[in-house]
């Protein structure tokens, strides 16, 4: 394990009445692939957004540690590459222009980012599409370009939110291969996924999240030992026996908007329908 790069200390993040993260603490070491595993609403995306500084914690601190110093999380954005859940490509720009835009914002010259783009696009078999507008791209192509965009400026750490979602088997394998290659080169990756077998294939360390709490932190092998189970799926189920939260994050809309919407929403009494039938 390398040095601690990120430190999440006793963080609580709430949205209205919902605690998306509760007193959550974790340290992220450099040079490892850390898998965030959890069901919908577990708090994976909230954690990733807290790490990027997009959300501010209600309690606790998120620190970026560099050269032994505690830095504000805003400085972390300079060294991070992010692949969000929505690929976030501009469809009127070409794939290369999308990549170049973010590299420029990171202060990386076009020649350097082009070199890196070529390397990663060849690894992901998409180099022939770099000069095409992304409008007609398939979900898989968009995902690959978004991944290259996250890598082209040479980040120290990579945050990937469901990087293989929507990809075919071959493309998903290419992405996993690239992530492992990055790790070989000393990179740090935080890899959010629903898929346990994928986490097992790629990650050195797994964080199992459930209802905003950290239920497990360790290697896949340790997970089996600690839970005394024979498969990761059994281990996961054992750790998350309580029901996942049904209540979604409250929508950020005002009282009047909500009342107005209700006014034009017909209330259907299903018991009456059954009786009628």
């Amino acid at each position, binding site marked *: 394990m390398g040095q601690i790069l990120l430190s999440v200390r006793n963080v609580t993040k709430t949205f209205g009445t919902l605690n998306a993260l509760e007193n959550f603490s974790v340290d992220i070491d450099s040079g490892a692939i850390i898998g965030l595993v959890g069901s919908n609403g577990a708090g994976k995306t909230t954690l990733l*957004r807290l790490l*990027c500084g*997009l*959300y*501010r914690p209600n309690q606790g601190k998120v620190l970026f540690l560099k050269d032994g110093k505690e830095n504000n999380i*805003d400085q972390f*954005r*300079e060294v*991070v590459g*992010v692949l*969000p859940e*929505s*690929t*976030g*490509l*501009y*469809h*009127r*720009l070409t794939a290369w*222009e999308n990549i170049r*835009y*973010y590299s*420029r*914002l*990171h*202060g990386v010259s076009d020649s350097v980012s082009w070199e890196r783009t070529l390397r990663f696009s060849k690894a992901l078999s998409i180099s022939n599409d770099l000069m095409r507008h992304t409008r007609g791209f398939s979900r898989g192509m968009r995902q690959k370009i*978004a991944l290259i*965009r996250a890598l082209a400026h040479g980040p120290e750490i990579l945050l990937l939110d469901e990087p293989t979602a929507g990809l075919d088997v071959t493309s998903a394998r290419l992405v996993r291969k690239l992530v492992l290659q990055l790790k070989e080169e000393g990179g740090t990756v935080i890899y959010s996924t629903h898929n346990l077998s994928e986490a097992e294939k790629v990650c050195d360390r797994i964080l199992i999240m459930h209802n905003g709490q950290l239920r497990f932190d360790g290697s896949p092998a340790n997970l089996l030992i600690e839970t005394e189970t024979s498969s990761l799926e059994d281990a996961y189920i054992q750790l998350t026996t309580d029901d996942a939260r049904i209540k979604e994050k409250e929508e*950020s809309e005002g009282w009047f908007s909500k009342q107005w919407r209700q006014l034009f929403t017909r209330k259907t009494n299903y018991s009456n329908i059954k009786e009628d039938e």
Partner: protein
Amino acid sequence: MLKKSLRSIYIISHKELIDYVRDWRTLIAVVLVPLLIFPAIFFVLPLVLQSELNERQSMPLDIYLESNQNITEFDFLTSKFGDNLLNYTFFELNNDINLNDTKNSMDDIKNSNISSVLRLSYDSNTSIWNYYIIYDSTQESSNEAYQRIRNILSQWEDNMTSERIKNAGLKEDEILDPLQPAESLQGDIATAAEQAGFVFSFIIPLFVSIWTATSGVQPSIDMTAGERERGTLETLLCSPCSRLELLLGKWLAVTCIVAVSIILQLTGLVFAISFLISGSILQPPELSIYSILLFLVAVSVFAIMVVALEMALAMRSRSVKEAGSILGPMMLFFFLPAIFAQFINLESIELFWFAVPAVNVLLAMRELLQNEIHLAHIFVWIFSSLIYAACATWYASRQFLREDLVESIN
């Protein structure tokens, strides 16, 4: 640090402009419509109206002429009817019939058998003709017949008046036109340039305010709510640029689009006016360099405020539709002061008007186009406008700090 910030702002605005220009609809919204709207209003619309008018005037129409007098009394009228393509049928009226009794003629007009009925009755005691025109104002042909009859009756009346004055041994000019100007407009001491400035002071501020408000709506929505809706904002917020740099980059791009749109619309307007109106009014207003510079300051602070407000409200919205629903009605907040400012008398104006949001800048533009420079007015409108622009920018920057920006309806 500043260099890095300026670089980020440049990169963002450059990308936004490229992204915006690549949409072919931009060509229509920002270039073609602004360039062609005024030539279309000033050239094409009058041409269409004239052609419609000619068509209506060349239409032969059938009417009834009804009177208690013999047809021979109406030589003047009947010859004019022929000249005006009115085909008449004469009916004699009984003396006991009421002129405004429309019962008999109503069906003929409603069924388009005839377009109108002219009833004339002569009172030999007073030597006065009474007339009554029956027509249907909802039918174009009937309306046209009514207009032609009114014109012909007016000519007939003039003719009768002249004859009666002559028969009385009087001079027509002395009776009908006893007061005449020595030479038209002789007493106006305003120069052509001043007159132009006066006219432009009513037109330009109104248009500039409307253009500023409307031109900024679509790009503001596209670059804020559009980004949220398409899910591209989250990635952008993860980049190392600050929220303020992001706001300024986008604001700069919208301002460039608004500026291009205003310049093109102004070009179209000047081009249209210069071909439509000939004569002295077209001379450019004589403006001092201070007036021109202050005019640009006025437009700039107004644009800062308007674009910042539009971006702030659009950024609050989670979809393009939501942003459009908010910004559409908000245009009234710019249009109403713009119209209102046209009616405020600039002479002896109270100072507080120059502190009223939006109205102050419009009044300033009006004053400056008339080459009027009042230091107290300038101080108040610049100071108050800067405060409003700063407030709008502050509000916009607050919206760019919202946590829910990363949430997209998709």
